[in-house]
């Protein structure tokens, strides 16, 4: 028993010192781990700061690189740091550096393959050299450098540059430092790439803006010239319509002046003057009318009454040319919302045109039918049809194939039909002649011509 108690006292001591040693060891481990953790936190914070700064670095990567170098030098406890960029001719040039005198930096260039930096650029892999003096292939240009660590900046498949940290103490860097530097290098590369892309985008944008501006100006010029040309054309046509009546009015007035005694002749001349003046008035009205926006008052109407009125108005002229009018108003046509006067004007115009081109004794036609979505009013003639090249122009204002007339009839008709949400078109008939068709929608939401308007 005494042996045990004696042994236990010594044992206690031994055990206590062993325990103390364990605790001390554990403590050291803990402190080590703590330090490690703090390092890690420092690195992560640095990376975080850099990430945040990256957002605004599109236009000037250099600032960010400087910042990265600062952080790297601090974290890794290096004395010299530099970021090199490949210049495309096989050389790496310093873009930014810390810890080096400016004169050295200016001329500092490393061929790809030489030294630590050149080697990293060539291999595309990061390198940690604990002591450059011990490895002749990495002998550096700067004196007193012992440890070196470099990581490649990769842009796509190629190496765009190298980030390089040096220390004058050998073995200053750990493998985890190499990893940190690789992370920074990746960020630096990304920043550079982004700024390149951004610059390209800016340039492209600028070019596009300039092209657009030029195009826009050209387009405006063209439109202006076209409009002027069209106006010139229109003016010429209207002028003709005005000059003839002027010749007549002036001439007859002159002659009246010379023969005031001859009442019968004077009266005849005066009548001609009045009718020519009225003609001028009509020309003026049709030109002015065309310029205005048509006022539309729509009522629900039957088409056959409008057609009937129109035919009645032209009856004399039809009879004087001995023309046959084939009339076909389908039974049971629904009433349509129409402005009576305007639509009558359209039909009269179409009938008049048919009347003008149909040879004496031949036939012209007017029909009103419906299909699922539209009401069709078609006027046909036995003329020579419409030449394909004027198919488009025929509805243009001031376009006319006639000698007289302002060419506004069809243009006005189109305007009116469009105010009724309809369309008007022309097509040649198989056996000679042309057909002008007015298509008016029957129900809301339907476009004439068969298409359905997309629901809003």
């Amino acid at each position: 028993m005494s042996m045990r108690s004696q042994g236990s006292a010594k044992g206690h001591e031994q055990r206590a010192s062993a325990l103390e040693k364990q605790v001390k060891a554990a403590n050291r481990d803990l402190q080590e781990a703590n330090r490690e953790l703090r390092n890690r936190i420092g690195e992560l914070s640095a990376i975080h700061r850099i990430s945040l700064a990256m957002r605004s670095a599109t236009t000037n990567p250099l600032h960010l690189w400087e910042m990265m170098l600062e952080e790297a030098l601090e974290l890794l406890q290096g004395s010299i740091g530099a970021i090199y960029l490949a210049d495309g001719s096989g050389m790496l040039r310093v873009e930014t550096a810390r810890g080096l005198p400016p004169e050295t930096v200016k001329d500092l260039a490393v061929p790809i393959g030489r030294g630590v930096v050149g080697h990293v650029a060539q291999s595309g892999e990061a390198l940690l050299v604990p002591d450059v003096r011990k490895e002749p292939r990495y002998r550096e240009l700067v004196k007193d450098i012992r440890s070196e660590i470099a990581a490649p900046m990769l842009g796509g498949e190629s190496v765009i540059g190298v980030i390089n940290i040096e220390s004058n103490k050998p073995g200053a860097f750990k493998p985890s430092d190499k990893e940190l530097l690789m992370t920074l290098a990746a960020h630096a590369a990304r920043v550079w790439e982004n700024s390149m892309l951004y610059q390209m985008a800016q340039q492209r944008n600028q070019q596009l803006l300039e092209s657009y501006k030029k195009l826009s100006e050209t387009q405006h010029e063209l439109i202006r010239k076209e409009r002027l040309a069209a106006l010139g054309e229109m003016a010429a046509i209207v002028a003709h319509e005005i000059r003839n009546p002027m010749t007549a009015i002036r001439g007859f007035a002159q002659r009246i002046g010379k023969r005031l005694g001859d009442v019968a002749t004077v009266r005849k001349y005066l009548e001609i003057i009045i009718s020519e003046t009225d003609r001028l008035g009509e020309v003026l009205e049709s030109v002015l009318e065309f310029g205005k926006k048509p006022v539309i008052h729509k009522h629900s109407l039957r088409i056959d009454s409008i057609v009937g009125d129109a035919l009645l108005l032209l009856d004399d002229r039809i009879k004087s040319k001995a023309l046959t009018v084939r009339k076909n108003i389908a039974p049971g046509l629904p009433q349509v919302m129409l402005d009576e006067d305007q639509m009558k004007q359209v039909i009269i115009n179409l009938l008049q045109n048919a009347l003008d081109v149909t040879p004496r004794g031949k036939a012209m036609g007017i029909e009103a039918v419906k299909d699922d979505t539209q009401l069709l009013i078609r006027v046909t003639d036995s003329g020579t049809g419409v030449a394909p090249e004027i198919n488009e122009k025929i509805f243009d204002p001031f376009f006319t194939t006639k000698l007289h007339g302002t060419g506004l009839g069809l243009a006005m008709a189109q305007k009116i039909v469009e105010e009724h949400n309809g369309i008007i078109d022309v097509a040649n008939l198989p056996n000679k002649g042309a057909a002008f068709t007015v298509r008016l929608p029957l129900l809301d939401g339907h476009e004439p011509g068969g298409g359905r308007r997309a629901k809003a």
Partner: protein
Amino acid sequence: MKHILVVDDEEHILTLFEDELTDAGYRVTTADTGMAALRCIEDEVPDLVVLDIRMPDMHGLEVLERVRDTHKDLPVIMCTAVHGLKDDYTVWDARVSAYLTKPIDLDDLVYKVQEVLEKNGSDKDEE
């Protein structure tokens, strides 16, 4: 008495020119289409033709061409409505004796007719 053929598709213009030229001492016949004009000339060659540029069936220039085919020396006064067109007709200057631009002044009409007839008459005398 000299014979003048007036060609224009507008009835009032024909009346106007016919009355005025008749008063000026000429015998006047009229035609309102290109074909009618050519027929008139075939029937009886006038001493002068007053020709409008636009006709319902053919262009005034075409009428001129056809007239020149058979009657090289027949004097023709062309009535144009658009000033600019005159420049296009430099080609035709040799074949057109004179131009009248619309709106036509009656005094100009009579004056030009007289002038052309005199010139043509004196040319004929020289032959």
